[in-house]
């Protein structure tokens, strides 16, 4: 298709915290500066900026992309904010990718930020506005409903127990104990802790859910000829995909994410991957809730339908297993500042594939990883495959 090769050459992130002293702009700048420092570039080297941030309702600021533009270094540059709900964090690097792959720019900064703590008293209420204003919102729905309903349908369709799903939360939170930016790393957490946590919306309990957070992540993308001058260890974007299912979410199969499959198949085809289970070495599926990681692994064709939990039961998903899942700690452990959480997964693959993940490093010199996010009203899938 005449597309140029695109590499990730630098990454930076802030701590993910429940409430940050820094403003959204300040967090954005901190992540951006760290990403530029990591590859010894300055803002003068950046030709265009892509920014991702989730609903304006969290911030109470209309056109939040413009509001954040100074922190993102966007002034006097081509600048664009993208937004596909929770899928944003893995969509915004795709946007950066096509800026470079197309030949339009050689070096692009991609930054994702979320400050959820401003909404008072709890960001949850801002989510009311994702439901249809006429046919659903009068029922006073709560964001937890939609996940609880989907989780229950998933469990019931395949006969999966709460005990087994809790293993996901345990592995991710334990992994996060090794992440210096993590909000909820818990090295000693057990399945019993998850099952004994407060019931919020059965079957969803407190430890099944990722925390509301503030944070920012940035990466730098470069065309091949630039990337090879700057680093010995470029990490290539080998495939991208995105896909949308019906917004009438009560009119579709809640047990299987077709939109994730659509996004994954697009990315696998671009990357020339025929057998994902053999060719993907690390996977960072989107895990705002523990069952979602399973749901997404199945949509990504990395497990049979209803069987993803086996990866956790037999140790395949562990950091030293055959297919490590969320070695970062994921959203459940590191935190869930929505758009930043998705881009955190891209940064994690960058560090893992370069062998720079420290205590989180997956053994065996992994060659290829996949990051995925999901969002809108449970119907958008975004996928990026990276390799070295």
């Amino acid at each position, binding site marked *: 298709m005449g597309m140029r090769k695109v590499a990730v050459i630098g*990454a930076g*992130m*802030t*701590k*993910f*915290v*429940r*409430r*940050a*002293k*820094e403003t959204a702009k300040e*967090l954005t700048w*901190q992540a951006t500066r*760290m990403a530029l420092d990591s590859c010894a570039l300055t803002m003068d080297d950046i030709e265009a900026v892509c920014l991702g941030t989730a609903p304006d309702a969290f911030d*109470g600021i209309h056109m939040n992309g413009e509001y954040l533009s100074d922190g993102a270094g966007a002034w006097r540059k081509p600048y664009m904010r993208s937004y596909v709900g929770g899928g944003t964090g893995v969509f915004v690097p795709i946007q950066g990718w096509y800026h470079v792959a197309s030949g339009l720019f050689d070096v692009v900064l991609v930054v994702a930020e979320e400050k959820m703590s401003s909404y008072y*008293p*709890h960001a*949850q*209420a801002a989510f*009311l506005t994702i439901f249809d*204003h*006429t*046919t*659903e919102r*009068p*029922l*006073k*729905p*709560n964001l*937890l*409903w939609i996940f*609880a*309903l*989907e989780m*229950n*349908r998933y469990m*019931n369709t395949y006969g999966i127990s709460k005990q087994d799903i809790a293993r996901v939360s345990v592995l991710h939170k334990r992994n996060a104990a090794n992440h*210096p*930016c993590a909000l909820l790393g818990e090295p000693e957490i057990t399945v019993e802790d998850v099952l004994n946590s407060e*019931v*919020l*919306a*059965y079957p*969803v309990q407190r430890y099944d859910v990722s925390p509301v957070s*503030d*944070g920012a992540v940035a990466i730098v993308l470069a065309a091949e000829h630039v990337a090879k001058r700057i680093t010995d260890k470029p990490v290539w974007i080998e495939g991208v995909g995105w896909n949308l299912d019906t917004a*009438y979410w*009560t*009119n*579709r199969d*809640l047990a299987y994410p077709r939109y994730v499959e659509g996004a994954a198949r697009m990315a696998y085809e671009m990357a020339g991957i025929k057998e994902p289970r053999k060719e993907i070495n690390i996977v960072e599926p989107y895990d705002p809730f523990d069952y979602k990681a399973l749901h997404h692994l199945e949509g990504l064709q990395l497990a049979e339908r209803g069987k993803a939990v086996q990866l956790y039961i037999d140790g395949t998903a562990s950091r030293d297993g055959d297919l490590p899942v969320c070695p970062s700690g994921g959203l459940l452990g590191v935190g869930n500042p929505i758009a930043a959480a998705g881009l955190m997964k891209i*940064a*994690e693959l960058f*560090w893992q594939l*370069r062998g*720079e*993940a*420290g205590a*989180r*490093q997956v053994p065996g010199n992994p060659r290829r990883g996949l990051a995925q996010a999901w969002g809108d009203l449970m119907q958008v899938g975004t996928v990026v495959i990276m390799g070295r």
Partner: protein
Amino acid sequence: MSANYQEFPGTPLSENDFTDGTILYNHDALHARFAWDTGIAVGSYLAALKEGILLGAKCSKCRKVVIPPRIVCEWCFRPIEKYVPLQDTGTVNTYSLCYVTWDVQRIKIPEIPAVIEIDGASPLHGIMHKLGEIDPARVEIGMRVKAVWKPAEDRQGAITDILYFKPME
């Protein structure tokens, strides 16, 4: 380079920083008020609710019956012109027992949101609503339920004209 960094930016605050006044903050409330037009398809849906009827729409090409009605078929992108009354009964596709309100207040007796597949609509096609007149411990996926309507004189042409769905004996 994650392993090469000792200190990451970002300064966590706690609730005490607010209550003790160690930080300054600006508190404001936005007053966003709207009046949404209901449109052609959903307008018909609401008018039917006022009459005590659940209205679906049938695509003459795909032969799918969807609810709520819409003017275009998502599958073939042809216009949908036929609206069809459905039953006010259905099957619980999935449910939750929710102990938290939309604005994160804790409640003792759970709300029971559910997706209900409506009889007469295509398989897996339903609406979100709530269940009532049932012990939360007895709710099951696959359970048959029927709408409990507000008295006709109280209906306003809103989804809340159905109070909830209750089990069918």
